[in-house]
């Protein structure tokens, strides 16, 4: 499998404070790559840099092309889509309007393509169809996450970046969201999954990176990481024998 995303020597600073130091990461096409680590490790910062929301140093290549000079909007048009931790929905607009805007970057493909994408999202999330005229700001936490995911899917992502999709959600909904992540991968979408819920993330992922205070502490196949005693002790709550 070829690499869809190759990050090398990536550093991101907030003023004088460097939050991410010389990180390298690769996501193979059609795989799920997870980045786990404690709060403040720089996971969200790294996604922000890949998406172009934050200025960064180092190299980010997508489909072999450098991304540095592209704006956020140009990256979205190339199929990089981020579901941020804060969801960033349009609270004062209806669920359906939120979803339609998800396809804004693909507006050139016409009404019919947008309608088909909308039907697919409704098929995947019947709850959103029930709530389609409701304002996004009135949704429950789980529904908001579904809407954020649905809106991202409307842009037909090639690389979908999810920032803490399980945050603040009931276990049953977390399970549902991770099932959908696995389905999406089966449909050919590459997924970069940032999670504090390391157990769930390593179960669904192919490959994993552990980020600690801005550095990659270790990385490897997800199954190997899950059985690594140090990772297990720190992130999975399993005491090393």
């Amino acid at each position, binding site marked *: 499998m070829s690499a869809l995303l190759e990050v090398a020597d990536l550093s991101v600073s907030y003023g004088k404070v460097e939050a991410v130091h010389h990180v390298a990461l690769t996501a193979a096409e059609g795989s799920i790559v997870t980045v786990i680590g404690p709060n403040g490790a720089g996971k969200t910062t790294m996604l922000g840099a890949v*998406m172009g*929301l934050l200025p960064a140093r180092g190299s980010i290549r997508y489909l072999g092309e450098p991304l540095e*000079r592209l*704006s*956020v*909007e140009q990256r*979205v*048009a190339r199929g990089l*889509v*981020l579901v*941020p931790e*804060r*969801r*960033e*929905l*349009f*609270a*004062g*607009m209806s669920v359906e*309007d939120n979803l*339609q*805007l*998800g*396809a*804004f*970057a693909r*507006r050139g493909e016409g009404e019919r393509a947008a309608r088909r994408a909308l039907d697919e999202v409704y098929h995947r999330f019947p709850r959103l169809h029930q709530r389609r005229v409701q304002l996004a*700001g009135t949704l429950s936490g789980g529904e*908001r996450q579904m809407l954020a995911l649905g*809106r991202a899917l*409307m*842009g037909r992502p090639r690389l979908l970046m999810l920032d803490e999709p399980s945050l603040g959600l009931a276990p049953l909904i977390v399970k549902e969201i991770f099932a959908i992540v696995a389905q999406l991968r089966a449909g050919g979408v590459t997924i970069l999954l940032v999670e504090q819920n390391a157990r769930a993330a390593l179960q669904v992922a192919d490959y994993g990176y552990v980020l600690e205070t801005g550095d990659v502490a270790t990385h490897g196949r997800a199954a190997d990481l899950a059985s690594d005693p140090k990772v297990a002790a720190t992130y999975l709550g399993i005491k090393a024998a």
Partner: protein
Amino acid sequence: MDLSIAALLTQDGITNGAIYALLALALVLVFAVTRVIWVPSGEFVAFGTLTLAGLQLGRTPGTVGLLVAMALVAGAMEVAGCLRRGEPRRIPGRLALWVGAPLAIAAAIVALAPLQAHLAVQVVATLAAVTALGPLLYRIAYQPLAEASVLVLLIVSVAVHFALLGLGLWFFGAEGSRTPPFSSATFTIGAVNVSVQSLLVVATSLLLILALYLFFGRALYGKALRATALNRVGARLVGVSPSFAGALTFTLASLLCAFCGVLIGPITTVYYDSGFLVSLKGFVGAIIGGLASYPLAAAGALLVGLIESFSSFWASAFKEVIVFTLIIPVLLWRSLTTRHHEEDE
């Protein structure tokens, strides 16, 4: 005051209020999407009237010079931007949009001016010329500062206001203009004389408001502007770029101002610097709507028009004082009832 005078003042108030309402909507729209308090909106109103007046006299209006100058500056900025980002391939497309289109409009106006064409054609030409100034102004003055604070953007707005005043004097001259009414017909309902001109103004405003309502409610681009106003980051993440939203917003807002200029021309004599006072009245309406609510802003503007018209009857010399004093209780009420909140999800 008897009933017929009251009816006359009400009619006047509603007519002026309808014009202020368009301005108020433009101000709310610009602030919501770009966080710019658009002080120079009045100059666009004045340019609208002066352009139409120029065309009616068969003269090339000063708008042409402004368009050409601003298009050249915007074009230079676009070329520099493309080179800096290492995208020289995009230069021809950007130049066609930012220089070609305004120059085409300017050329059309130069060709049209001596023909003394039908009023409707002149109105369309006026709207096109003044509307084109909007995105050019955004590109030149505001887009490079899109991430700046509201205060910085306000300071820039004041500077742009003075710059446009100077340019207005340069391009349009110091003499005032008044355009003939679109219709001088009147009819009576009961004891009240209603002028068709007033009805035209109110109907045009209502139609524009309806068109805006449909645009923001139904069209994808309208929704994209609302989305940008609600959540800037969210909008970027679905591919709505702030500069695109800003340029589109300024296009719409300057179209509204151009309409104001066309509508206000037969009501009062307009000089290059008359717009500011008009825009301030729209601003009072916009403040009543908290710079956020379109219906409240329009209603507030209507109220301003009515108060202005009645106070010109009772205390003509204090007309403006009364209108602008209105803003004090409104601000008090706003600051007591509005809760300050961070942008939420």
